């Protein structure tokens, strides 16, 4: 065997991430149910390894211009008859997503410590989901991209329906089964469009391969005519857009996030929704550039509605998780808006926003989950003045809130700024509406923080305790990247830039 070199590392790291998640799921299946402690330790240990591996991918990725666009390539022949290979590799857009997944799964596995009911199946499904997420981000074969995409969607139903929680309000109620089914139907119905689009692209390009790099080259040489791209793009937009929370197909998302257990909400809002936006870039921008160009304005308008509609809905909610859920819809609007600008800077902002929103929203869910575990309610009307009993929680919450409303010095600011610059260059009027959305965000976030954490303490909550060291650690894991990017964004931006360069090559005039 040859000595372990940097090359060896680069060839094997991506597949190792996928195998590790699968292996974790398998090991947990084999551990007897009674060994709950062992199961949790295996899950956390695996989460830590995944985080480490993901950060190493980031470090090893060479963003210098002139370097190949796709790196850490690995390929196994799989089904020659259709031209399907198990082909892995990352570009500058996938790398931040890999890091995001590592951060969130590590934090989520820590937070899952206290999950109720049979926790074995829970961790198995959680890791199957993560396998799907990693696989989607690093696949360079369209078939496997879709394979892993579906794999990530599947476990959600059981994770929410079994381990989730129902919510009841005065006027309506949402059972966890309802929310789980709604989420599943929306996402699987959307994947129908994606599936049809993928087969249609394969047939139209007529290259006999699902290799994304080959397909991209073929498309740039005019393999799919402009008209076909324009017809196919809406399938991609709606299919992936639904997962990204695109208005008006976003309604599964707040319900699903609220019903899901904390760790699943974190993964779902934090990572899974990004799969949708990532899909629009990977399939829409790379393989149907003329289609994206044709439909960009429509996407821009929908994204603007996303921002405003999400923000105003969040303002009207009192349940903490619903606020965060609608806030996610609003923030994903910036991602879509960034893509719709078709400007280098806007797309870069969109990718950074994907990362930034991922860690930020996961942090929110950790904190809301902690409050709910203690107070058994998430209703901000009765939750008042918690800072007196839950000081550290309040600090983290305020931190996440400030990142969310785009305070300079935190990651959200950098990302949204880039998106807005791009947006003003293309559609100034819509861009202004987007900025208004940011202002609305500031209103509801600050109001929420003021109401829940400050002011007089509701005596009902006198017995509450602050978050444990474990939960604090999980929150800190998420807070570090927010601060890091806010203060020193250039390492991330350089990587993303190199990816956006390649992704935008095929765009008309790009």
């Amino acid at each position, binding site marked *: 065997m040859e000595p372990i070199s940097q090359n060896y590392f680069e060839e094997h790291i991506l597949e190792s991430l996928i195998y590790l998640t699968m292996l974790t799921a398998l090991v947990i299946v084999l551990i007897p149910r009674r060994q709950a402690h062992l199961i949790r330790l295996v899950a956390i240990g695996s989460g830590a390894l995944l985080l480490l591996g993901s950060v190493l991918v980031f470090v090893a990725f060479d963003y210098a211009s002139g370097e190949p666009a796709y790196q850490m390539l690995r390929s196994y022949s799989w089904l020659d*008859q259709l031209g399907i290979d198990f082909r892995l590799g990352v570009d500058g857009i996938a790398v931040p997503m890999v890091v995001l997944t590592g951060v969130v799964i590590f934090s989520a596995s820590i937070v899952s410590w206290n999950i109720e009911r049979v926790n074995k199946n829970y961790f198995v499904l959680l890791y199957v989901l993560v396998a799907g997420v990693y696989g989607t981000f690093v696949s360079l074969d369209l078939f496997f991209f879709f394979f892993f995409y579906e794999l990530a969607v599947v476990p959600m139903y059981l994770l929410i329906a079994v381990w989730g929680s129902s919510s009841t309000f005065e006027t309506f109620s949402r059972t966890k*089964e309802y929310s789980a089914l709604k989420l599943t139907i929306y996402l699987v119905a959307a994947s*129908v469009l994606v599936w049809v689009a993928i087969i249609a692209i394969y047939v139209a390009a007529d290259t006999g391969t699902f290799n994304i790099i080959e397909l991209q080259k073929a498309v740039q040489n005019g393999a799919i005519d402009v008209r076909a791209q324009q017809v196919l793009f809406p399938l991609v937009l709606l299919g992936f857009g639904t997962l990204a929370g695109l208005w008006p197909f976003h309604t599964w998302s707040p319900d699903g996030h609220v019903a899901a257990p904390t760790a699943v909400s974190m993964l779902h809002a934090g990572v899974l929704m990004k799969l949708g936006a990532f899909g629009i870039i990977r399939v829409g921008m790379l393989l149907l550039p003329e289609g994206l160009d044709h439909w960009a304005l429509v996407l821009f308008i929908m994204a603007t509605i996303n921002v405003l509609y999400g923000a105003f809905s969040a303002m009207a909610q009192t349940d903490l998780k619903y606020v965060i859920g609608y806030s996610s819809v609003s923030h994903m609007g910036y991602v879509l808006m960034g893509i719709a600008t078709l400007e280098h800077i806007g797309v870069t902002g969109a990718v950074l926003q994907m990362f930034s929103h991922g860690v930020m929203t996961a942090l929110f869910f950790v904190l809301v989950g902690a409050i709910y575990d203690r107070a058994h309610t998430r209703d901000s009307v009765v939750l008042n003045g918690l800072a007196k009993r839950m000081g550290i929680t309040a600090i983290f919450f305020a931190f996440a809130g400030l990142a969310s409303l785009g305070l300079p010095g935190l990651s959200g600011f950098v990302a949204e700024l880039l998106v807005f610059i791009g947006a003003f260059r293309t559609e100034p009027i819509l861009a202004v509406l987007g900025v208004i959305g940011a202002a609305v965000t500031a209103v509801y976030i600050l109001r929420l923080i003021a109401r829940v954490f400050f002011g007089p303490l509701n005596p009902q909550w006198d017995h509450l305790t602050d978050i444990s060291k474990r939960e604090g650690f999980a929150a800190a894991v998420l807070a570090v990247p927010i601060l890091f990017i806010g203060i020193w964004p250039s390492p991330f931006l350089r990587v993303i830039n190199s990816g956006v360069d390649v992704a935008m090559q095929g765009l008309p005039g790009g």
Partner: protein
Amino acid sequence: MNIDFSLLIPEFMLAGLAFAVLGVDLLAPEHRRNVLSATTAAVGLSAIAAFTLPYLWNEQDASLYDGIYRVDQYALLFKAFFLAVGAVSVLMSVEYVGQRIKHSGEFYGMLVFSVLGAVVMASAGELLTAYIGIELLTFSLYVMVALHRGDTRSAEASTKYILLGALSSAVLLYGISILYGTLGSTVFTSMEPSLAFGLGTATILVGFAMLLAGFGFKLAAVPFHLWAPDVYEGAPTPVTALLSVLSKAAAFALILRFFAEALPSSIDDWQLTIAVIAAATMTIGNLTAIAQHNVKRLLAYSSVGQVGFLMVGLVALTEAASSALVLHLIGYAFTNLAVFMVLIALENRTGKEEIVDFAGLGNRAPFSAMVMTASLFSLAGLPIFAGFITKFYLFTSAAGEGLLWLVGIAIANSVISLYYYLRIVRQMYVEEPSETSPLRVPVLTTLVLIALLAGTVFIGVYPGPIVDIIEVANRSLPPFVP
């Protein structure tokens, strides 16, 4: 003419085995009849598959009686497949038959005969031979459906099945006779040149339509599917499994060969008709399945839906599409057998077969529930299970033939099916059961379930080797017209 009877050894051995099973039943002491005849059948089927087929595999496209009976790679692949399905069906039935069916020897004897019928269908290169195979298979099934003595549903199902089956056989025969009268031959390859000018003439059209109706009944394709739910529900559950796997697979083995050898040049005349039947079959099957509350009825409609998917491969009729069709059939067999195995295990312990009776199975029998979930997900076409890649392959190969609209309908149907499969999953894991005592599943069942699950996952993550084998087998079919 030099006839090499050694090519027929598997068929002779199967017929011998069927009589041997009946003999064991006569001679064995009463309390051991079930186990002994089941053992004979299972060991016999596996032995025939293991020892005779490999010897024949290298025979290049051998045939008997001037192409009437074909022993080529295509037929041999299906023979191995049917023998394996037969052996698994025997294992699946042991406990059930011991509990509920008095005539165990007849049960296993008929099961072996039904496998023989399927084997003949895979080899048939001519319509009357095909008809004999079909009748051998369905007559065995008529008897088996009725074997649940004392259950009125079984008697009712059997009556319906026999009456409608006889009618469809008559239609089929009439169609064959008309085609023979017009074309002068019933050998597939000899029919081809006469059909190359199209199906235009009225007599050919009528004959062909009657043939289609007969096949449609055997497949339970819309609009000839109405017998399926009642028969599936009333039949002893292992027989339902045979109906949904063996009988469908055999019918497709025959029909694919017929289409590939007799009909390729007239494709423009029939393609749209079959495509519409396929679309209707999958849509009606899947939509009706949503409304069911009996699991066997649900599986009946779900298998109607699956027939619709399989017909997509028939419609495209390319080399890739026919490989995909066979692959989907094999994956479908693994998953459906697993589903029925769990259903039978549950039925043996609780005597119930409604969807709500699955409540709490996730805790009462965790492994069986897991296999059930995996199999249902596979049927719905989700990764990492067989159904995902087999459907993807099937749909991709059909989309290349200008059938993207049909593929769109098929994919949408695939999602509809997930909805009703999830209803069962939900019962197993989410709903609170009325009874919580653990269910003890026998070791034999667990072992077979492990094997079936392994097969489902293997096809799902590494289909390459199996596709290679299928491609070699399909080379026995004539070159497909582009």
